[in-house]
């Protein structure tokens, strides 16, 4: 499967959606009654968090496919998904900290169960790459990584439940109006942001898959042209490699 085919269309779609999203966030959505202008962080922080979590779950699903079929391409998909979600996760934690500082004056608060749960999930997935790296046998590495991805993916909802139970408060006062619901204009801006962030994730995922695919093809081409000796053997690495035929 070629990953680069729809990349241009995806990138354009992402660009349009994200521009629309931020435009809506800043010019269309009303000012939050409680938090004022800093509530606008919500439109970048929460979509990133949701997409990152979705990415982790997608990584888990690809891992299930990998264990079922044994096809290493699913392992690569899982790896890239988790890798991307981790990067987004850093963004979530940093923007969350900025928001916390703006709202409550501290760079970190334990009152927000969603942010705390996200930290735990992030800490768990941060071990994914070191774990992969420390298993030398490639096939075993891929298999164990898939088991990890499935366990961690199943762990995400359980963890959120547990942390939420532990806390008295609910997550960020995104609700500006007294009736507790998100006003329609804010909802629209949020949904468009979410769509944009999801598109961004898919685009970046395809970019990375295409890049790894290209890399593997280049190796194969070099091997065909120069023989096996010309290709430096892949040393120990955490990243899965596509089989080069």
């Amino acid at each position, binding site marked *: 499967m070629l990953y680069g085919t729809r990349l241009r269309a995806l990138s354009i779609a992402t660009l349009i959606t994200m521009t629309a999203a*931020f435009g809506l966030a800043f010019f269309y959505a009303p000012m939050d009654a409680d938090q004022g202008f800093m509530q606008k962080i919500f439109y970048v922080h929460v979509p990133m968090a949701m997409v990152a979590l979705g990415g982790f779950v997608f990584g888990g699903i690809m891992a299930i496919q990998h264990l079922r079929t044994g096809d290493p391409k699913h392992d690569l998909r899982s790896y890239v998904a988790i890798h991307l979600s981790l990067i987004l996760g850093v963004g979530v934690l940093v923007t969350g900290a900025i928001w916390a500082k703006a709202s409550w004056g501290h760079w970190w608060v334990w009152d927000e169960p969603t942010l705390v749960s996200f930290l735990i999930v992030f800490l768990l997935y941060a071990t994914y790459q070191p774990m992969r790296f420390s298993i030398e046998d490639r096939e075993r590495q891929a298999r164990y990584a898939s088991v990890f991805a499935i366990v961690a993916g199943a762990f995400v909802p359980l963890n959120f439940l547990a942390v939420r139970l532990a806390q008295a408060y609910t997550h960020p006062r995104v609700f500006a109006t007294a009736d507790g619901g998100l006003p329609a204009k804010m909802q629209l801006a949020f949904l468009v942001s979410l769509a944009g962030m999801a598109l961004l994730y898919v685009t970046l995922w395809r970019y990375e898959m295409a890049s790894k695919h290209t890399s593997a093809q280049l190796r194969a081409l070099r091997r065909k042209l120069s023989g096996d000796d010309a290709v430096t053997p892949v040393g120990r690495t955490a990243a899965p490699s596509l089989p080069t035929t």
Partner: protein
Amino acid sequence: MTLVLAQATTDALPDNVGYVAAAYLVFFALVLVYVVIMASKLARFERELAELNDLADERRGGLAGAREREPEEAGTR
């Protein structure tokens, strides 16, 4: 000075702009870091492909030379 600033925050810029700007900047920075990494990978691919292209040309040159020599040998046999 403070009066001017107070005027500015209430009229022109809303408060907490710094924080909001920082948050969005973090997001953009992440995406741009990704672009930079992709760029360097792309550069590497370009280089490698050029190398492999040259390699393929040499091969073809060698093959063409071999093909030229064969009819001669066939002729001498």
